[in-house]
C-alpha cells in the first residue's frame, strides 16, 4: 500500500506564505504533493470566519495517513484508498470538539465512484474504530475530501465542513468545453 510508510522518509510540507495557524500537512512518500492549494485556501477562509479554531501540527503525517486508510478500510470493508496518489490533511480544534479534514487524490474514476457509493450507502457514518467518531465527505474533481469528527461535535463541525466544501466549489476549475 502506497500510504504505508517508513518513519525515516516522512515529509511534512507547510505551504509557504500561509498563515502559521492554518496548517495543511502532507504525506509525500512515494507520491507527489497535491499542489492546487485549494485545501489551504479553504482553511484560511475558515479561520477568517471562525477565528478561535486552531490547527495543531502533526509531525508524522504519513503515520496519520496510514491510520486513516486502515480505519476507512475497516469501515467500508474495502480498501478504496490504497491506490491514492496524493494526500493532505489538517487537524482542527473547534472549541471543545475536534475534527480532521482528509483529502485523498484518486485518479481512477472507477475507484472514486466506488468509495462514494459505499460511503453513501453507509447511513450511520460512524467509523469502525475504538473512538466514537463519525465522517462526512464530498468529492472535488479527482479528490475525495473527508471530515472525521468526534461524534459529540458532529453538528458543530459539520457546519465548518460545509464551509470548506463551499470554498472548494467556489474554486473549482472551469468545466472543459464539449468538443
Amino acid at each position, binding site marked *: 500500500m502506497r500510504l504505508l510508510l517508513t518513519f525515516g522518509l516522512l515529509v511534512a510540507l507547510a505551504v509557504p506564505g500561509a498563515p502559521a495557524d492554518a496548517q495543511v500537512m502532507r504525506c509525500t512518500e512515494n507520491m507527489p504533493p497535491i499542489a492546487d492549494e485549494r485545501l489551504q485556501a479553504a482553511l484560511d477562509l475558515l479561520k477568517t470566519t471562525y477565528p478561535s479554531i486552531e490547527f495543531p501540527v502533526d509531525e508524522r503525517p504519513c503515520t496519520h495517513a496510514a491510520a486513516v486508510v486502515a480505519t476507512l478500510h475497516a469501515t467500508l470493508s474495502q480498501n478504496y484508498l490504497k491506490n491514492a496518489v496524493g494526500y493532505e490533511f489538517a*487537524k482542527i480544534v473547534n472549541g471543545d470538539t*475536534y475534527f480532521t479534514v482528509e483529502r485523498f487524490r484518486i485518479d481512477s474514476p472507477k475507484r472514486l465512484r466506488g468509495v462514494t457509493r459505499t460511503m453513501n450507502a453507509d447511513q450511520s457514518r460512524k467509523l469502525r474504530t*475504538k*473512538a*466514537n467518531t463519525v465522517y462526512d465527505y464530498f468529492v472535488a474533481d479527482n479528490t475525495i475530501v473527508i471530515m472525521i469528527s*468526534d461524534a459529540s461535535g458532529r453538528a458543530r463541525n459539520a457546519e465548518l465542513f460545509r464551509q470548506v466544501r463551499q470554498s472548494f466549489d467556489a474554486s473549482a476549475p472551469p468545466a472543459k468545453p464539449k468538443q
Partner: protein
Amino acid sequence: MSVRQVEIVVTNNIVEHYEARSYPDEQRDKKGFYALYRVPVYDILVNGIDDKGNPNSMKFMAPRFMPYFNNPKTPTHYATKNWVNAGLSSGRTIIISKYKMDYEVQNRYSPGRGAIVLHKAFYIHAGPADLLNYGFGSAGCIEIIGNFEDFKKTIATLSGDMTGTPDDAIQRLVNAKKLIVKIEEAKVPNIKKALTRKVHD
C-alpha cells in the same frame, strides 16, 4: 542490549479530581448544555532501575474511572448500553503484550500518541493537558494527565535502552515481556451522582 523491566502502577491513591464528560455519548440538554462529572484522579507510578542500579519511581496522574453513557436510542459500536461507571476496579498484574505506537486520541485533540493495551479496549493513553482542561471522556481508559511524551520518555529511560524514539523503547519492552502494569484494587466511585455542572461550548 537487554532492557530492564519497567512497572507501571495504577494506584488506588486519589490525589486530585477532574471534570469529565460522558463517553461515547455526552448528555446534552435541549439548550445545548452538556453534563460534567467529578471523577477521582489517581497516582500513576512508573517504577524501574536507573542506569546506576538504583530503584527509581516517577509519579504521574490519571483518572481510572470515567462516566460511560451509550445512548440506547442511538447506540455506538460499544457493546454496553446505557450508563456505567467505567474502569478496571479489580487488582491485577498484566504483562503487556501490545503497544499501539501510532494510536491517536480522536475524540479530543491531544498531541500525545501511543497506547498501552491493558485488556480489550482498555488502554493507557494520552489525556488532558492539565486538570483545568475539562471534558475528556473515555470508556474506562486510563488517560494520563499532562505531557504524555514525558510519560513515555520515563518508561524509555528506565528501560535502559534509549535507541531510537521512546515508542521504539516501549515496543522493545513489550517484545521482551518486560513492561508490567500493576493495577491496584480500587472502589468504583458513583460517578453518576457526581454531576458538577452543565456547560455550553
